[in-house]
């Protein structure tokens, strides 16, 4: 009896650990991607330059980058014989974060630039006419595009949180180390533990729902500031 209880407890602790790792990896990847993707998207949306259309097409294509492919690229980069092999990052959470960054950055960049380009000229003229300097007008445009920015961040996080191909390849689903929700679902399913797989899947969906609810309700408040 005691053994059963303690094993149940241990199992719960392990699930908690997996959830934590999932949130950590995908959260860090999203944060990093936002730090790159928001300024990059704003720059693309705001400026006119040669090759802009080509660049946008590239970004849109990368938005649909298959996770396994991102995983493969990072794997080759970090594997022992790869150019960054000396850093010994393969099969660590850092490697997983890098791979997910590759997936999420184009999503944030693309959605931010689209959100900004949509009404850019209109907002710019209004801001300038009301006395804004160029910098102030640019800042206003970015603030007005916040829906696109938030959508980009949420979509990016959702994509990272739910993908399995990249984290499986570069993380390796190592217990207590790189195991996350999606890789556990794959493993449990392979072992025939369908109930556990479904339970983990439900946890994943619930967490996604919670994260987007929190972000959205804060966004509503912010929009009336």
């Amino acid at each position, binding site marked *: 009896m005691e053994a059963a209880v303690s094993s149940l407890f241990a199992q719960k602790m392990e699930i908690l650990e997996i959830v934590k790792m999932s949130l950590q990896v995908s959260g860090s990847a999203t944060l990093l991607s936002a730090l790159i993707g928001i300024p990059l998207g704003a720059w693309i949306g705001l400026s006119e330059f040669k090759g802009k259309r080509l660049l946008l097409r590239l970004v849109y294509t990368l938005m649909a980058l298959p996770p396994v492919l991102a995983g493969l690229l990072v794997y080759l980069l970090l594997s022992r014989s790869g150019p960054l092999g000396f850093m010994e990052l393969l099969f660590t959470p850092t490697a997983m974060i890098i791979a997910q960054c590759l997936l999420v950055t184009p999503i944030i960049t693309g959605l931010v630039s689209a959100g900004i380009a949509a*009404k850019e000229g*209109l*907002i710019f*003229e*209004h*801001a*300038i*006419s*009301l*006395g*804004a*300097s160029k910098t*102030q007008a640019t800042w*206003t445009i970015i603030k*007005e595009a*916040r829906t696109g920015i938030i959508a980009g961040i949420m979509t990016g996080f959702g994509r990272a949180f739910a993908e399995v191909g990249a984290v499986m390849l570069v993380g390796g689903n190592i217990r207590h180390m790189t195991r996350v929700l999606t890789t556990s679902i794959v493993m449990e399913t392979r072992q025939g533990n369908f109930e556990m797989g479904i339970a983990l899947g439900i946890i994943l969906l619930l967490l996604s729902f919670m994260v987007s609810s929190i972000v959205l309700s804060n966004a509503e408040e912010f*929009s*009336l*500031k």
Partner: protein
Amino acid sequence: MNLFEISGLKKNFGDRTVLNINELTLQTSKIYAVLGPNGSGKTTLLRVLNLLLAPDSGWIKFMGGDIGISQADRLSVSRQMCMVFQRPFMFRSTVFNNVAYGLKLRRVAKPECERRVNEALDFVDMVDFAKHSATRLSGGETQRVALARALVLQPRVLLLDEPTANLDPGSVQHIEEIIRKYHQEYNTSVIIVTHNLFQAKRIADESILLINGEVVERAYTAEFFDHPRELRTRQFLDGTMVY
């Protein structure tokens, strides 16, 4: 004092000359109506005056000084005028914040900012809407907020681009009253582009007819309507103009 002096002004889009004004001098403290058919360059003129568009040739003086030389000059000049666009864009925030926008850009202290915003909202009868979302207003309400957003800055000149197009008669009257009242209280110059000939008659000291980017006639409003000098003005007023 001259508000604007324009000389040899040209603006091209591609190989089309959209604005071509030889000489035009506008005085301070007056209401000018700019009339003309669609596409005659009225909006372009306002955008050039507001420094949103650079002319291709010619010069403009504002209050006696050349405009648009250095970036710093541009800002201090453009902060003395304000344009209300034909379809005003409301920032996605409250009515209050929309009206406060220009004051915040000028780093006006909070208590003064609040006082002036409330004053401006009162001026356009929108005090009750202060906390409402500015993007969910009716056409007339949007125009009044757009006006308040400009008035609150106490500009030397208000540039209004068809502020009553597509509004019901009640809203039109309301907005004309606001413009007239503001002009009387603050002695602000107003340049109003309008399609509504009656509106020009009702509020403008002088009327200017623009056709194909050229000033065809400019006269005191009564004269403009009762004794137009130019054939094209008569045709425009009769509705017999062939474009």
